[in-house]
Each structure stands twice: as C-alpha cells, then as structure tokens.
C-alpha cells in the first residue's frame, strides 16, 4: 500500500495485560542446558517470559485490558461502536473471538466486531483498520484488542499478553501516518504447519520427538526460520521507517520514541544501530516480557514509557514486523490519553 494519513482519529488510551506467571529462560530448563541457555539469553536478550495458566487465554487477557480501559476512560458500553481483535490465538477457529468478547463484555449488539489474523506486525495494522472506520466518522468510538497466547515452556522467545486500545473520532486530533506492507513469498518463515485445512491434525501429529535433555517437540509446533526473519527484519524495517517519516514531513530527531516490535535483541539492536538511535529512545521489554507478538509495542509503551506518555504530548514511531511476512509503520502523537499501569492476572 502507498503510505497514507488518517485524520480525525484520537488515540484515547491503551491498557496492557500479562499473566502473573513468570518463566525463566535460565532456571526453567534442564541444568545440563545451562551454558547453552546463558549464551542464548545473552544474545536474544530474553531472560524471563510470561505464560498463561491453563485457564487463561489471549481473549481473557485482552478482555481484562479492555475492561480496565473502559473504566479509565469512563466510556459507557453502549458507546463502543466497534470491537476489533488482531490476534493469531483465537479461542476457537470459528467463530471470531471479537464477537464472543462483544457478548462477554455486554457491549451492544449494534457493535461492529470482527477478527484480523496478524501477529508481530499487528499493532500498526490494528490502529489503521479501526482508525480508517473512525476517520470516516462512521464509527465514533472503538476498541481494538491486540496480542497472542504464544508462550510455551520450551521455546525461549515467546510470551503471552493481551492489550486494548481506544480510538475516538475527533476533528482536532493530530494526523496518524501509516505505511503497511506484505511479502507472502516469505510465508513459510514463520508458520504453524499443521491444524489448518491443508494439513489437519491427525493422530501421528501427537507423537513427539524427544531430545537428549528430555525436551519434546511435536509436528504441530511453530516453525521459525531465524535467519530468514532476521534478514527480512533488518533489511525491511529501517527503510520503511525512514520512508514513512519522509512521507510525514518528519525526520528521526523529531520522534520522541521508536517502538519496535520486540523480536529479539539481535534484530532490534541491528535495526537501532542502523538508524543510529540512542538506546533510551528505543525502549525495550525483551528482557522481562520476551516476544509478545502483536502486543509487544503496546506492552513496551505501558511497561517502559508510561510516565513520559502521561506527562505530555509525545510523537511516536511504531514499527511492527514478522509473520506473513508483513511489516507496518505508524507515526502518531499522543496527548491526554490514559495509560493504566501494567495489569498482571
């Protein structure tokens, strides 16, 4: 898509919710793997992750975030015209999780609700999809719930989180600039190979292979081609950001914070160094919250720059990138928005 600008869309607030349960990448693995894990943690920068209890799901985390956000904003439930979910961890394959949440939250049946299947690039897309409807004035107030339940004990990268963001029609709002892209030739770089219609789950998919430390892996596990994702991310993101800035008539020094999707330290540090930005301008939650998929940008806003965001007008550049392959940039301003403290459940 060519770059585009949305007007009349006010960013009213955002809440992030994570499970209380912490998994340590160093301590919660077989002692024989300690040296290997220390090297891994040094390089990917992820020491701890959050993981759902068996009764927690993306939908419950996101709903907790949404309830808190409505409370902070003092929005009435019947005022919510749209509820969009951007996630790859639906409660069921069908129906859409957003519609189930509409009922659970007792929102009006006049609420527009649907799901969007995007992961790590999802947050700028979420703002664009809901923002487009709000810009037109058709939707006055809307919520978009972004995140995933993607943590497992074995995989050292992923961590669970759900977030809620509130947008409202407001002719005095500053413009939001977007640049959204897709490259499906990389669809196999990050994928769940089994469980869809092309390869439904069968009995043999439940038979694990076991490594020398007793770790089990299943044919249903996520496939991630690390080198392909790293090359994609570090080659695509810096020019996409610079392009969007130019489109917006801005330069990097006019940005208060760059919020990158939290992929891993190697990817994020390479992008930061290529852009020649100081670390304090590019906040990170990798160490404590790992890769929370589409939630990683809002989680980082809540956990790392909540106070500055509450203190006055800030211009943010948001860059999501990953599964698809897909990458998306948003340049926006926040002022007077609500940012409740991190919710831990």
């Amino acid at each position, binding site marked *: 898509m060519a770059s585009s600008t949305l007007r009349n869309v006010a960013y009213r607030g955002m809440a992030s919710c994570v499970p209380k349960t912490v998994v340590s990448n160093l301590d919660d693995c077989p002692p024989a793997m300690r040296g290997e894990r220390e*090297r*891994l943690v040094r*390089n990917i920068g992820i020491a701890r992750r959050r993981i759902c209890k068996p009764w927690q799901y993306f939908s419950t985390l996101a709903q907790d975030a949404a309830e808190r956000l409505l409370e902070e904003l003092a929005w009435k439930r019947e005022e919510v015209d749209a509820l969009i979910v951007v996630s790859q961890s639906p409660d069921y394959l069908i129906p859409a999780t957003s519609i189930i949440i509409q009922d659970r939250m007792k929102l009006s049946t006049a609420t527009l609700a649907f799901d969007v299947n995007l992961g790590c690039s999802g947050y700028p897309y979420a703002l664009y999809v809901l923002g487009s409807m709000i810009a037109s004035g058709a939707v006055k107030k809307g919520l978009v719930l972004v995140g995933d339940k993607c943590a497992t004990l074995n995989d050292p990268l992923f961590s669970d989180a759900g977030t809620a963001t509130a947008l409202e029609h407001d002719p005095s709002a500053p413009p939001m600039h977007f640049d959204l892209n897709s490259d499906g030739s990389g669809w196999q770089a990050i994928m769940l190979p089994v469980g869809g219609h092309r390869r439904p789950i069968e009995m043999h998919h439940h038979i694990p292979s076991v490594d020398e430390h007793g770790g089990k892996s299943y044919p249903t596990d996520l496939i991630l*081609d*690390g*080198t*392909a994702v*790293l090359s994609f991310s570090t080659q695509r993101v810096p020019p996409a950001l610079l392009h969007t800035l130019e489109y917006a008539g801005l330069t990097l020094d006019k940005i208060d914070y760059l919020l990158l999707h939290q992929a891993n330290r*190697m990817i994020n540090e*390479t992008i930061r160094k290529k852009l020649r930005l100081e670390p304090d301008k590019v906040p990170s939650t990798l160490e404590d919250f790992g890769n929370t998929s589409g939630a990683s940008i809002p989680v980082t806003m809540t956990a790392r720059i909540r106070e500055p965001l509450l203190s006055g007008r800030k211009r943010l550049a948001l860059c999501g990138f990953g599964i698809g392959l897909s990458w998306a940039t948003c340049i926006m301003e926040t002022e007077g928005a609500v940012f409740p403290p991190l919710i831990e459940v």
Partner: protein
Amino acid sequence: MSGIESFIENFNTAVDFQDPVELKPDTALGDLPEWDSLAALAVIVMFDLEYGVTITGNDLKGCASLQDVHKLLGGKA
C-alpha cells in the same frame, strides 16, 4: 592486522563461544561446537553492521570453512 585476521576476530566475538577456540582460515565450521542457528544470526548481523554487506542463511549454509565465510565479503575487508 590483515583483513582475514580482523574478520576472524569479529567472527569470534559474534559467535560468542562458551569456551575459547582457536580459529584459522581453514577451520571447518562443522567442527565448531557453537556453529548453530544463533551463530548464523550473529554472523549475518556482523556482516551487516561491520561491513555493510548483506548475506543470508543460505549463503552461510554453502560455507564449509571460515575462509568460505570470509569470501562472502566479496573483498570488502
């Protein structure tokens, strides 16, 4: 320091060996205990940031020795 010597030093830092290893141009990558996917990521980053050269995981898969990896620089070091 000649081109390949400083390259080997950068390679050593990037791969982050748990125990010191002696690296020579003809060292076989398959003999290095840490020559894994993490090492490949680190070497791709090192090429990008230190030399401004873009390489892929497939480029590295085609390398048998450290000398082969150095050749991917295409004379840029």
